[in-house]
């Protein structure tokens, strides 16, 4: 066991971890921030996506020890202090960008990272960026619509089905 320290959602945290402890296990198990989900545990589905030093990362494919000194943001860390939703979160609600909701934390974190780099992505760019986020309800149309809306763009052109 070794001690690891990092900043998660603006708070300094620390804990004893094994070498093999994944970042997502630290986030969910030690910090009890269970908004970050584990879908596949094979780095394909993106449900565990968090931001590490501002970049989208699959937290099931990074060790907690590697996040020493890092700034980590999880789905719990993006809302306002009063609990107000971000534009991305609000758009997911407005456009029904979720069905069962399991993939949603990863989708929202991925979309948030995309809009930081590319504030007005095209539909094709959004679909390309979400390659690593799988929705097993296959609710992609409304997810893409929500991200278009969150970036202040017209969603009328996106297929309805």
């Amino acid at each position, binding site marked *: 066991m*070794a001690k690891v320290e990092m900043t998660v959602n603006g708070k300094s945290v620390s804990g004893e971890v*094994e*070498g*093999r402890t*994944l970042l997502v296990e630290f986030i969910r198990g030690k910090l009890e921030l269970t908004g970050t989900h584990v879908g596949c*545990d*094979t*780095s394909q589905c*993106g449900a565990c*996506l968090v931001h590490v030093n501002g*970049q*989208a*990362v*699959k937290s099931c*494919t*990074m*060790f907690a*020890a*590697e996040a*020493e000194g890092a700034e980590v943001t999880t789905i719990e860390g993006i809302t306002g202090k009063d609990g107000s939703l971000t534009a991305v979160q609000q758009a997911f609600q407005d456009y029904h960008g979720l069905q069962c909701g399991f993939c949603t934390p990863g989708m929202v974190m*991925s979309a948030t*990272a*995309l809009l930081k780099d590319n504030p007005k992505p095209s539909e094709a760019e959004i679909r390309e*960026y979400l*390659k*690593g*986020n799988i929705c097993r309800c296959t609710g992609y149309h409304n997810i893409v619509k929500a991200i278009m809306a969150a970036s202040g763009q017209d969603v009328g052109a996106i297929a309805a089905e």
Partner: protein
Amino acid sequence: MYNFDVVTPKTVADAVAALGEEDAQALGGGQTLIPTLKQRLASPSKLVSLTGIDEIKGIRTDESGTLCIGGGTTHGTIAGEGSAYPALAALAGNIGDPAVRNRGTIGGSLANNDPSACYPAAVLASGATIVTNTREIAADDYFQGMFTTALEEAEIITEVRFPVPEKAYYQKFEQPASRFSLVGVFVAKYADGVRVAVTGASNDGVFRWTEAETALSSNFSADALDGLAASADDMIADMHGSAAYRAHLIGVLTKRAVAAAG
């Protein structure tokens, strides 16, 4: 996963020292190694994480115009900042998905030498030089078969040096589930000739298609490849494609790459 220690050195020298211990293994971005560890296909006693070593990160162009990329540079950084070599930047930007590209590194990919990885094709077609903590290795000497390279124990890729071609293109036929190349062909045209490297196809890993190189060096057009066929001998055959299919793809993708390179 079996348990192991993780150490996070800040310098190449410290990393090399840590790798000197028995059963220690280097950990790049981990996008291949961590899934491998989860499947218990590797059981190191210690992982030496290279992601905290700033001296092996970043991209620069040296005085001769060679593009020099630190071994610890991520695919995402190469895609975004590798514009001096557009075909290479495009290749990097099409590996995996954005989150994978934010962790995975060029050095990690080359050290692993997956037979379907993209970077080996770029490195071999470019005649790039692999620089380690101890020496420089020419691409033609570096790749030694599937998952096998010229790297010694405790040797770390610090930089990869790419001569920038006049024209180049990487044509990948993507296996849609894994996003590795079912077959990928990298064509690079230099003043002194054309090099063609093929990944994803051979049981021996990445290789040069020398017949195509000869034809393209005298006439850089897709037509120059008419009548040329890659041999299906020793091609990978699996549930995704037969050996003959992969051999056929090599010809098709090479033509497409030449046409796209212009």
